[in-house]
């Protein structure tokens, strides 16, 4: 059974030899640690993800980062440059294509070839492994901002080796968050092990005096995920990363839609992650937060999408997220053009800048929400520790098996898939069906009461139909889904 234990150096090195053979680009000399360390040490502070995040947190400002990645290297670089200048991005991403995410490097290679022929990207991201360190270094060298890999890769070991050796100073992902929402039948133990490797790599660089950032992927399925559930995953992945020696971690959260719940979530995410890291003895980890603009279905209309983007930015700024991942007016349609991507960025930029001196202060509503989130996270973490007999890695695997932790709408068979979320009358995400979720009666009652309130108000049963209505709601322009045929009061 998997344990939350630092991978011994010899065993890491042994695995590494295997990993680097998975695709021919793994054979590059630039992957020799001597070379990669020297290269990473040459990264200036303003291109170092970890350092820039520290500065932002101290200044109390929310920095912005888009998603972006295309099949062809030159085009990818041109895209990033555009987002840096015309988009005023603070951080750059390289969003990796889905074949690479599933380690299908041959498919990705074909995708590159076909894209060259078609003269447009047929891949939904940048196939970093295929380009190898040489290609990825070009990306890093030709931009002036910190670069991060963003993906959804259950086994990102080769990818991680390549990107860090190329000067990319952050890597998104985690053994749970890049499995449950992104895979169907890959074991959790496996993916946790894979990501322990990725973390160990970052921990190794840390030992060499190189500070890299790691970002557990917060929003999970992006669809009505209650904050306590995504927080629990984020905290566990932060702890697993810290054990491998990671010193700079950004925990994430996807906008839910209720302003107060979202700000409560942002504040508790920071507070709880710090609390648990210290509790488990990881004293020197620097924590920042990332807020994802609405991750569910978008409306087709571009102006309305811009509305959501700026509204989300208001929440991120008032909640003092350190970073925000932006969406674009093309979200509902497909991968955005560079222009659309930059529009989303600039709308976000002005809002975060306008509000940088402001923050949401406590109120009884905010305090109640924060207290609930904390109570729920504590219950979930406790359940994991309990079934893991004190070990969080083992614990989380067992907790998923038992359904003590359960993520709505996830494709993975490792996930019980029994809980159903729905919004309460003010749009806060609550739980309708608990499955085996490790909540006590008091917590459950709180959720049930809130949903009953909504049911009474809307004069209907609290049922799966509410969940469905809520899934559609935002793309139809409201937050709380209304029963079919019911009049929306809007004019």
């Amino acid at each position, binding site marked *: 059974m998997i344990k939350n234990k630092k991978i011994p150096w010899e065993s890491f090195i042994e695995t590494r030899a295997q990993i680097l053979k998975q695709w021919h680009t793994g054979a590059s000399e630039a992957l020799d640690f001597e070379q990669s360390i020297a290269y990473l040490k040459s990264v200036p502070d303003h291109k170092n993800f970890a350092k820039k995040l520290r500065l932002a947190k101290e200044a109390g400002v929310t920095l912005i980062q888009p998603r972006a990645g295309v099949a062809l290297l030159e085009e990818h670089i041109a895209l990033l440059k555009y987002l840096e200048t015309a988009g005023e991005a603070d951080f750059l991403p390289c969003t990796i294509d889905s074949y690479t995410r599933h380690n299908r490097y041959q498919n990705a290679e074909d995708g590159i070839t076909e894209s060259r022929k078609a003269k447009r990207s047929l891949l939904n991201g940048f196939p970093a492994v295929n380009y190898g360190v040489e290609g990825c270094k070009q990306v890093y060298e030709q931009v002036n901002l910190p670069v991060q890999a963003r993906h959804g890769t259950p086994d990102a070991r080769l990818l991680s080796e390549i990107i860090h050796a190329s000067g990319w100073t952050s890597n998104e992902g985690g053994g749970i968050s890049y499995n449950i929402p992104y895979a169907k039948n890959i074991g959790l133990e496996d993916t946790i092990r894979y990501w322990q490797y990725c973390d160990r790599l970052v921990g190794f660089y840390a030992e060499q005096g190189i500070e890299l950032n790691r970002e557990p992927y917060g929003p999970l399925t992006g669809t009505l995920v209650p904050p306590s559930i995504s927080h629990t995953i984020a905290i566990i992945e932060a702890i697993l990363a810290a054990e491998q020696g990671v010193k700079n971690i950004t925990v994430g959260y996807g906008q839910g839609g209720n302003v107060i719940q979202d700000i409560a979530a942002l504040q508790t995410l920071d507070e709880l992650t710090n609390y648990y890291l210290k509790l488990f003895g990881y004293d020197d980890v620097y924590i920042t937060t990332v807020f994802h603009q609405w991750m569910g279905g978008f409306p087709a209309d571009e102006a309305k999408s811009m509305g959501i983007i700026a509204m989300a930015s208001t929440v991120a700024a008032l909640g003092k997220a350190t970073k925000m991942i932006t969406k674009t007016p093309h979200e509902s349609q*497909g991968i955005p053009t560079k222009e659309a991507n930059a529009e989303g960025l600039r709308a976000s930029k002005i809002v975060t800048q306008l509000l940088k001196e402001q923050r949401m202060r406590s109120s009884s509503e905010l305090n109640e929400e924060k207290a609930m989130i904390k109570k729920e996270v504590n219950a979930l973490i406790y359940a994991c520790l309990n079934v893991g007999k004190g070990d969080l890695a083992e614990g989380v695997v067992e907790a998923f098996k038992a359904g003590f932790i359960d993520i709505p709408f996830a494709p993975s068979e490792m996930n019980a898939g029994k809980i159903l979320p729905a919004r309460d009358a003010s749009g806060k995400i609550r739980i309708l069906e608990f499955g085996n979720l490790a909540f006590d009666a008091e917590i459950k009652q709180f959720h049930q009461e809130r949903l009953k309130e909504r049911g009474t108000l809307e004069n209907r049963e609290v049922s799966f139909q509410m969940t469905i209505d809520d899934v559609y709601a935002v793309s139809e322009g409201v937050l709380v889904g209304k029963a079919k045929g019911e009049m929306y009061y809007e004019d």
Partner: protein
Amino acid sequence: MNTVVIGVIGADVHAVGNKIIEHVLNEQGFNVVNIGVLSSQEDFINAAIETDAQAILVSSLYGHGEIDCKYMREKCIEAGLTKIKLYVGGNIVVGKQDFKEVEQRFKKMGFNRVYPPGTNIERAIKDIKGDLNV
């Protein structure tokens, strides 16, 4: 009973729409065989053969739909599914493209009906019922 196979093709993990399509088709009286996300053309075809389905509803959200759906009609015919209806929907190409053109491309590939992003599934069901004479 009208059996339809649904699923999400390729390396695609978008599960939300798939779960909702299952629910609504069930509600509307279909016998739904849901092979879920990350399904290959073979998975769809095998499921259709095994369950004697009349239609396959392919979802593709993540952008690789154009690559993933190539030769699907040919493979159906090879497997003996000569009369099966093929539907495709979701965000089936990369980026915001003119949908008329996209539709043509997929119709040429042998899909009977092609749906644009964010299609309301209930509207599509009307087409399907018509096509299958339900």
